[in-house]
């Protein structure tokens, strides 16, 4: 007799925490449903009409009772709010050190890119016990990455980057679903997250990435698209230098400052006139339509890798292996 599962597996650090809150809510629901239904049924029997003309006892109300059954539920919901908000905050703030993986969703498949160059379709290999951060975007409509056994979910939007993070605790294969309706094959836009022990994961990584790390592919794109013509390693170019740019504050021509994060880099490539760096002419053409979303992510990885080191001859340090 196969076991009937009524709860999903707990396969991440968040899962037991979310489940604890869930169980509390189930108990609360059961308690109040049984209490009030029971009371109501009891009244229906005890006070059933005895004669045709009988009326009930006129009771106006009772403000003490009203106050009590307002304040107690209020305290209960505030408690639930506090608990869930604090869990949510943890979910929304990835830890400082994460293994960053990029995801591009498109109708109706998922493409994952590891920084070391591995590209996967509809399957995502991750090591157990490591915090993984997914940076995601869509090539077309809104999608959503949902991994039920990790209790994580986040929408994947076109034209923007969104994030989610998790730390898997059990090796295994877990469902990955698209959870934002996206057209004909929405229910087919599914896959697997494969959580492996460290050793196995290293083996998988060593199985060859093919064309090089994301940053290396990005560097090639950078040259092929002639970005290097204006964006040089020094400050003599017609465009600002990108060395050491990532994560720094940039001053725009309208005086405001903005952080040069992934979103800013992406926007500067597809719509350079939107937020221009101060001190430069508005001559950069737009690359919208000329670079795919994967290509944009590779360029972002490349720019990330341009640290201000003395020997920047080749510019690109090798991608680092999975962090602890």
């Amino acid at each position: 007799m196969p076991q009937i599962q009524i709860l999903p597996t707990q396969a991440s650090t968040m899962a037991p925490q979310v489940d604890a809150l869930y169980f509390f809510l189930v108990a609360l629901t059961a308690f109040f449903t049984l209490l009030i239904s029971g009371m109501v049924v009891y009244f229906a029997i005890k006070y059933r009409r005895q004669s045709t003309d009988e009326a009930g006892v006129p009771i106006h109300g009772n403000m003490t009772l009203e106050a009590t059954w307002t304040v107690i539920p209020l305290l209960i919901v505030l408690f639930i709010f506090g608990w869930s908000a604090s869990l949510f905050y943890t979910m929304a703030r990835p830890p400082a050190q994460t293994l960053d993986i990029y995801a591009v969703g498109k109708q109706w498949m998922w493409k994952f890119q590891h920084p070391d160059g591995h590209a996967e379709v509809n399957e995502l290999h991750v090591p157990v016990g490591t915090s993984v951060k997914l940076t995601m975007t869509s090539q077309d409509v809104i999608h959503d990455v949902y991994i039920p056994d990790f209790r994580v979910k986040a929408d994947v939007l076109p034209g923007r980057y969104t994030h989610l993070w998790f730390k898997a605790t059990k090796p295994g294969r877990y469902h990955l679903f698209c959870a934002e309706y996206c057209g004909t094959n929405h229910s087919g836009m599914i896959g697997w997250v494969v959580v492996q022990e460290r050793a196995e994961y290293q083996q998988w990584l060593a199985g060859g990435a093919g064309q090089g790390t994301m940053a290396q592919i990005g560097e090639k794109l950078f040259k092929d698209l002639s970005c290097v013509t204006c964006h040089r390693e020094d400050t003599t170019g017609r465009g600002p230098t990108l060395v050491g740019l990532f994560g720094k504050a940039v001053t725009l021509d309208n005086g405001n400052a903005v952080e040069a994060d992934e979103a800013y880099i992406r926007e500067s490539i597809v719509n350079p006139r939107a937020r221009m760096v101060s001190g430069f002419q508005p001559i950069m053409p737009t690359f919208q339509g000329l670079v795919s979303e994967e290509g944009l992510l590779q360029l972002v990885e490349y720019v990330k890798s341009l640290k201000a080191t003395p020997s920047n001859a080749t510019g690109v340090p090798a991608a680092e292996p999975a962090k602890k």
Partner: protein
Amino acid sequence: METATPHANYLTDGYTLKSWLLTRDHKRIGLLYLISVSAFFVLGAVFAGLIRLELMTPAGDLVESDTYNRLFTMHGVTMVFFFLIPAIPAVLGNFLVPLMIGARDLAFPRINLLSWYVYTIGGIFTLWALVSGGVDTGWTFYTPYSSAFSNSSVALVVVGIFINGFSSILTGLNFIVTIHKMRAPGMTWFRLPLFIWAHYATALIMVLGTPVIAITLVMVAAERLLGLGIFDPKLGGDPVLFQHLFWFYSHPAVYIMILPAMGVMSELVAAFSRKRIFGYEVVAFSSLAIAVVGFLVWGHHMFVSSQSVYAAMAFSLLSFLVAIPSAIKVFNWSATLYKGSISLEAPMIYVFGFIGLFLIGGLTGLFLAALAVDVHVTDTYFVVAHFHYIMVGGTIMMYLGGLHYWWPKIFGTLYHDGMARVSAVVIFIGFNLTFFPQFIVGYLGMPRRYHAYPPEFQLWNILSSAGAVVLAIGYAMPTFYLVYSLVKGKPAPPNPWGAKGLEWETSSPPPTHNFDEIPVVTEPAYHYEK
């Protein structure tokens, strides 16, 4: 329509089609709505039946994906816009509001008739879209899929819903003016039946919320037909802005659906326990509180849509707060039963059904307001179960309960109460069997709007589909004994339930002008004391 009542009434006042289609009588307009709304319910139910049939097996083998996507979209559009939003207000509200306040009609009878025509025209557009291939965007029309990618009749449906929205606005406007300006002498605000308070609060939402979805749909149509990029990221727009604008209406819309049902609850609880509602003023104000706070919580549909953590927390807190007035109502109704004189005719069975189902539906709302849990269950069958518990378990139970309670008044005939009680119980059982398994399969991770699903979810889907069969039987049963009562039912006296309320002080059915003499009110509502 043959009634055995000897006196002239609004039903006998003209038998031609023209006398119905050009009527200004709020009672006849209520019946026109009854017919249209019932037709759309049947359509929406057929779509639901096909969905449940497909979902009995994990593979998508009954219909194509594109067809399935159209089925659930049209199920949602039909049920939300063409059934749930108008049902109680436009059928029972139109019929009863003037009667309950002692007026001869609503403030604007011609606008009332116009609202029905607008509803019908909107419905025709939507049916036209259905016939020309349907829509596959989900009833939520998220961009950019709906504005730039879908190969279906989006513009037609969006126009249909836009037009239908005016029906809502006109009804709400009519109710507000009527309740302010046309109460009988002595009918002060705090002597009004709670049904009126509920409809007043509903009307406020109709008037304030509907225009926002109207303009949002205009923008989607503009994007689709004219290429204007308000929500298109390639043209600099923000698809999430659509979600904010959409939910700004669509969340209050669910209160448009439930508040009238709560109004019916108050009437039924009072009538079938023969006492005033415990905490009348609190219940009245709670309707207003729900209407107001209901406008502040729309972001809880968007916790995973990339809005900021702090915005999400604000919406979560407010969503918890909006639950409180609903809870208070349930406590007050329950307290009303204490020392009541309770009789269990069919409307009261519906009352008990509502309490059970609304408790579960409302409490599962807490799961969704809880941010961390919502991340896991949003866009899964857990949400589907939650809202069906409220809308079907709540609204439809009270729609049927209200129809059964006021049926003798509306048609002047009595139906077979035993059969009515049985079908109420069948509906309750069928409903739970259909939707409770969906909580389980949702927490397990089954996403919504899935045509095919992993095999481990099948057990729950089969239970749900079996329940749908029982539910369908339950819904079909009233059709038979209610229609039978129109033909062969015993004539109804003016007040078959011995209830309080101005509607019971005129004949069953009422004359066209409602009251031979406008009553003067001297008692509070539900004044059952001797």
